[in-house]
């Protein structure tokens, strides 16, 4: 995987932090010259994943920054928590599945909105989700 350049580390401990994460992602997406629709998709995915880190993961942090693949620029965001982890990934990625009171679209929907989606999780081990969107 390509390296995250000059990553910013943002805490995710409350509602306002979720707003800060999506604002930071937008600034980087602008700098990487992502088209408007792709910016909007990435920021929306970041909002869903940051909320999951907060609500389901019990809080954690995000690492956001640019990546390059040759001359192609992209934006990457990682969401990290040390919460309960996800035991059944197939179930968690089912549209409409929720163990809380959400719509159950955060995981499945955000995966559709980005170019690359990687998840590392296990019951009791926390969750790390990395998403990338490339400039066209």
């Amino acid at each position, binding site marked *: 995987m390509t390296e995250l350049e000059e990553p910013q580390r943002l805490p995710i401990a409350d509602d306002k932090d979720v*707003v800060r994460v999506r*604002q930071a992602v937008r600034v980087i997406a602008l700098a990487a010259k992502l088209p408007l629709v792709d*910016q909007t998709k990435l920021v*929306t995915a970041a909002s869903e994943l940051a909320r999951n880190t907060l609500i389901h993961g019990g809080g954690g942090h995000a690492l956001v920054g640019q990546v390059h693949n040759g001359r192609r620029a992209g934006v990457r965001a990682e969401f990290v928590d040390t919460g309960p982890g996800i035991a059944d990934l197939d179930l968690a990625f089912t549209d409409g599945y929720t163990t809380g009171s*959400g719509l159950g679209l955060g995981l499945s929907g955000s995966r559709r909105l980005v170019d690359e989606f990687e998840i590392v999780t296990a019951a009791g081990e926390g969750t790390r989700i990395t998403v990338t969107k490339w400039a066209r």
Partner: protein
Amino acid sequence: MDRVPVLKIGEILLVSIQIDLDDQTALQLQEDLSDRIVETGAHGVVIDISALEIVDSFIGRMLSTIAAVSRVLDAETVVVGMRPAVAITLVELGLSLNGVRTALNVDKALEILAEAKQVRGVGVLTVRGSDDVPL
């Protein structure tokens, strides 16, 4: 805490969301609007989201809930000004905004609400003071 203002224009409540909504503020708006509908007997609610750069599942659910609650309270809700990039993203996210009426702008929304009121046989809508409000 941030609070989104709810304006009353004639028999319509107008909400223009100008900030990046955190979840708590979104829930507060949901509550404030229900209270104001009951208080004022408004028959219509217009929510202008043209300043919103994203609508995620939480804000989407807020819009659906406001629409459903207002209907139970005998008021129609119309959401206006969704940006094209937001609309495209919503579809891919899988959000259907069930039961939410949308219009391109506030004028169109007021037409829809006037018609809805006529259909219910209550009479013709007059929007008092609408000239004073920057829409």
